[in-house]
């Protein structure tokens, strides 16, 4: 009896493996296993651990001790942490400036331009430089009497009237934000050019025939067609400015009041070894980011109420086509 069922099971298992469904299931499991394993080991498991750590007083070596919400209380009461959170305003302002510059340049370059590719290339390249190199380049750039001061002196400024770019409190944050704009505006510009290229070129020709000038073309054709991607980038850049990390980390290492939230967190975790407190900081920041993202999404939904979902789908498709069109154009 048992032998019979075993045989039947075996046969059906074999059949299942050979069947289409069976083959599908096998390939799905085989191909998903490693990516999901990596995702859980390096993202979701640490995410859970981080939440757990935030309730403990612990360092890398000591045994952890449960202290409830004390870490969170300290995050909200610590003056240094609060001050670092305020710094993200600099980065937010910077990211808006960056978006405006990128949009302006992208619009310029989307019209026929002599040497357009060369301009594009030079403005984009900073994006490909590694963070440490950028740190050195800008330490050098902002040092007293060096590159930036020389350039300003050529423009007629007197060295004695110029401030110390990386030492003066407040101003140093502006310098750091400038660095980050320098690094990313070209990348943003390329993004926007891609979106603008997706607009049918016949529309510009028609508009030109109707006598619309470039400014009107920008307002009525370009801006509406790329509103989705601009919105997306506004959201990303505001969220990104909350987690600003690289410029202060590599250029000033957070000295002189340039320690952003992440730099401080990094210091608390690795130098001061207060793992619990740092975890609580991370959780608080994540919550702020989520709330900010949701609020922004709601805001943009409300602001662009008249452009319904269907339009967005169409524009997305167009963008995709646009990318391909670009490619074929360049290939020619």
């Amino acid at each position, binding site marked *: 009896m048992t032998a019979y069922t075993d045989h039947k099971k075996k046969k059906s298992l074999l059949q299942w493996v050979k069947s289409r469904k069976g*083959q*599908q*299931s096998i390939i799905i499991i085989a*191909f998903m296993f490693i*990516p999901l394993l*990596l*995702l859980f080991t*390096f*993202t*979701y*498991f640490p*995410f859970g*651990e981080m939440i757990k*750590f935030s309730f403990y007083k612990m360092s890398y070596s000591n045994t952890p001790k449960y202290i409830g919400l004390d870490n969170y209380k300290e995050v909200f009461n610590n003056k240094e942490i609060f001050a670092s959170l305020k710094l993200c305003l600099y980065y937010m302002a910077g990211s808006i400036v960056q978006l405006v510059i990128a949009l*302006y*340049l992208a619009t310029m370059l989307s*019209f026929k*331009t002599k040497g357009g*590719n060369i*301009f*594009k*290339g030079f*403005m*984009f*390249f900073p994006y*490909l*430089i*590694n*963070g*440490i*190199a950028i740190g*050195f*380049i800008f330490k*050098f*750039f902002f*040092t007293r009497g060096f*590159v930036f001061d*020389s*350039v300003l002196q050529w423009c007629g400024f007197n060295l004695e009237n110029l401030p110390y770019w990386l030492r003066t409190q407040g101003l140093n944050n502006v310098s750091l934000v400038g660095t980050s704009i320098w690094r990313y505006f070209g*990348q943003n510009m*390329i*993004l926007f*050019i*891609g*979106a603008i290229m997706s607009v049918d070129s016949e529309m510009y020709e028609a508009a030109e025939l109707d006598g619309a000038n470039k400014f009107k073309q920008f307002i009525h054709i370009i801006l509406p067609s790329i509103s989705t*991607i601009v919105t997306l*980038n506004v959201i990303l850049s505001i969220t990104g400015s909350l*987690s600003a990390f690289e410029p202060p980390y590599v250029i000033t290492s957070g000295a002189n009041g340039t320690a952003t939230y*992440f730099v401080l*967190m990094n210091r608390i975790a690795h130098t001061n070894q207060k*793992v619990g407190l*740092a*975890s609580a900081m991370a959780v608080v*920041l994540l919550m702020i*980011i*989520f709330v900010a993202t949701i609020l922004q999404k709601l805001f943009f939904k409300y602001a662009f109420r008249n452009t319904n979902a269907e339009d967005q789908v169409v524009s997305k498709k167009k*963008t995709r086509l646009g*990318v391909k069109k670009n*490619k074929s154009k*360049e290939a020619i």
Partner: protein
Amino acid sequence: MVAKRRKHYSPSMIVWIFIKYVSLLFFTIVALVPVVSCVITAFKTDAEYQSTNVMTLPESWLNFDNFIKAFDMANMGRAFINSLIILIFVLIGSVLVGTQLAYVLNRFKFFGNALIRNLFLFASLLPGVAMQISVYNIMQQLGFINHLYGYIIMMMGTDVIAIYIFIQFMENISTSLDESAFIDGASYMTIYWKIILPLLKPAIVTSLILKGVSTYNEYYNANLYLQTKQLRTVAISLFSFTGPLGSRYNLICAGVIISLLPALIVFILCQKQIYSGITAGAVKG
């Protein structure tokens, strides 16, 4: 032909063109000055560096002493080998993992498909630096710290943008190809390997370049998990200039220039793919 067109330019057009080129030129100069000043300084001898203004051109453009010295001092030969090993394995691994995942997610309907897509999307929202503390603990427990393979496995991890580029590209590959291959008796593995992977080539090239540049430039994790001198990557080897050299910027600049040469070469050769990769990654919405 050109002359004919010129006649059509109205005064407002001329102003417009003037503004356009001036602003393009301005931002190009802004983008260039920091790097160019670095190049200038890298060619100066110590005496020259101390006596001249930073923006004065060097006496000789053939003075490669600083480059040689910087290369030796930071042990960059070893660093380039390390970076190359890391690049090769990370790129092969991430392309295989990414295309396989995209293949399964795009071609098959199964329970949890949408959930898994969302899991990856949500993961991309979590800022990496915030979780570094607990990732560090895990790396410690796995014994991955100070081993190239540990760092490679961690970096191979899932890159959402690459997956999106693959999925997007796969949507344009007709499923009838898979169907007819399946009817001819091909297994799904064969379909992936012989049909999908070759057709994905343009997307793979794009993601290879983007992932390659970002892996080459990565320093935060490399600094945490590759602390032995022998394991330093190029980006980290630059770090060694901070302490002893202080402000000998002619050497530091030479090191900086050496470190960004590979990225520059890739950029010059693959500009088109880099641009299309950036736009494709962003269109995901």
